[in-house]
């Protein structure tokens, strides 16, 4: 499979997970695994009203391509979609989507799990959490990089 078939997106538009699932599937794919990160109403005991994501977009896209390439190296998979939203997101909106099509289920699920872990570790995107008035940047784990 040609790597150029990977779908990599860092976008301010809402993530269309259904479209991503349809895009990655081939007739030889028996399995489509997906992980969607969703904005939830609390984080470490604090209420969350909404989030704002900021990305270093060109580097984030490069890192997402790297992650997709690692997934291909480690598992026999057909196609990968890695997408991250930027800008303001309300509760319930999808912030990140990892969608993997593969001939078999184990590969799809394992690669999907690896994909979201790597995204959280290496992709230059930052989250600012807002409660009803103030916002605060979430600082990641520096040892994870």
């Amino acid at each position, binding site marked *: 499979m040609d790597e150029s078939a990977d779908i990599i997106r860092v976008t301010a538009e809402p993530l269309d997970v259904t479209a991503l699932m349809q895009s990655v599937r081939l007739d030889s794919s028996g399995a489509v695994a997906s992980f969607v*990160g969703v904005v939830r109403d609390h984080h470490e005991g604090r209420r969350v009203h909404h989030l704002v*994501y*900021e*990305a*270093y977009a*060109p*580097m*984030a896209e*490069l890192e997402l391509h790297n992650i997709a390439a690692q997934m291909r190296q480690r598992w026999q998979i057909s196609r990968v979609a890695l997408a*991250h939203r930027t800008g303001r997101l309300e509760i319930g909106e999808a*912030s*990140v989507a990892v969608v993997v099509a593969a001939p078999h289920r184990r590969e799809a699920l394992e690669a999907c799990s690896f994909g*979201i872990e790597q*995204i*959280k*570790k*290496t*992709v*230059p*995107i*930052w*989250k*600012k959490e807002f409660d009803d008035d103030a916002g605060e*940047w*979430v*600082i*990641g*784990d*520096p040892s*994870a*990089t």
Partner: protein
Amino acid sequence: MLINVKLFASYRELVGQEKVGLQCEPGATVGEAMQRLEQTYPVLGRQGYSPLTACNLRQVGRGHVLQEGDELAVFPPVSGG
């Protein structure tokens, strides 16, 4: 030589700008550029975490040698997902 510094997230807000031009000696390392940046914006050094750095879209350590016109990105540990 001129280095194009890009600041993100908390660092962007602390400095109040997303881009800063930084004059460095030829052959300066990322570490030296960061020292100069923190001299101009002392608030950068007073956070409870250290900035990560990337040169021309690739993450680099403090020892990386910069070249004229490089894009040096400065950002906190990532928190996407």
